[in-house]
């Protein structure tokens, strides 16, 4: 079976998934950083809308991943690759906590950042560039942490 998803059908479904994901973010209001911050501002004028975004997404996701867990291969014949790591460690918790701080400062998380970029937002562009540099810094730190070739 195919482990590499690289043919035309796979690329088309990737593009379609990204497109539907992005349209969902716009419709949901998640592409508007002010609305995201209003959701995080529980002690001010709280806008609970994004809780319903999570509810809607997880409602569909629960069904999809229940099906995916029972299958070894996707409908296109690729192996289904679900994360196997089950370790709850400092990297997970501190990394998530740091992400939350950045999210709370700008109201932008990685997926909406690309929607903002596509919408031609200069501020979205700045965020995406900084985010990619941040990911590059992670790669450098990790490269130094582990011996080469490991």
């Amino acid at each position, binding site marked *: 079976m195919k482990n590499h998803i690289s043919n035309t059908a796979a690329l088309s479904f990737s593009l379609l998934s990204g497109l539907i994901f992005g349209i969902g973010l716009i419709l949901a209001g998640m592409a508007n950083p002010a609305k995201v911050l209003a959701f995080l501002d529980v002690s001010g004028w709280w806008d609970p809308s994004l809780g319903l975004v*999570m509810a809607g997404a997880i409602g569909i996701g629960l069904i999809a991943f229940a099906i995916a*867990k029972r299958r070894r291969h996707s409908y296109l014949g690729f192996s289904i690759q679900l994360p196997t790591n089950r370790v709850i460690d400092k990297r997970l918790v501190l*990394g998530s906590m740091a992400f939350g*701080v950045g999210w709370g400062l700008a109201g932008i998380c990685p997926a909406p950042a690309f929607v903002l970029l596509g919408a031609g937002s200069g501020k979205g562009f700045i965020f995406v560039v*900084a985010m990619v540099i941040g990911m590059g*810094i992670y790669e450098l730190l990790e490269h130094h942490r582990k011996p080469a070739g490991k």
Partner: protein
Amino acid sequence: MLIDWNHFTPWTALAGGVLIGTASAIFVLFNGRIAGITGILGGLFKPRRRDIGWRLAFITGLMIAPLAWLLFAPLPAIEINASNALLAAAGLIVGIGTRYASGCTSGHGVCGISRLSPRSIIATLAFMATGVLTVYVARHVLGV
């Protein structure tokens, strides 16, 4: 806690969430992968030849979403009040944090919770908590 009923948009939020869930469903059921933006983008830092196309295709899909939207309706308001310096700092922190956490709102918050992964539930609680705390400190303590 005071609910801002004027800006509360339950139906578009729910419908948008259903689309996000549908996109994640299509991605895992057809391509066999998690629709986590951190993982999709992070994989491009150590590119394997047959692995680049689908990652770029997904990100391209996200980027053309506003253009597709514009074919039918004007885009909803996008309000970014943060200064460029603050956005750059926030972007850096998000980039480093999400990679250490191996996921963000999409990978952990949507796909991970949907898989009932304890790691993702912890991650989501952690970034929600510090997100709320950060906004609290910025708005109500520092008054930014």
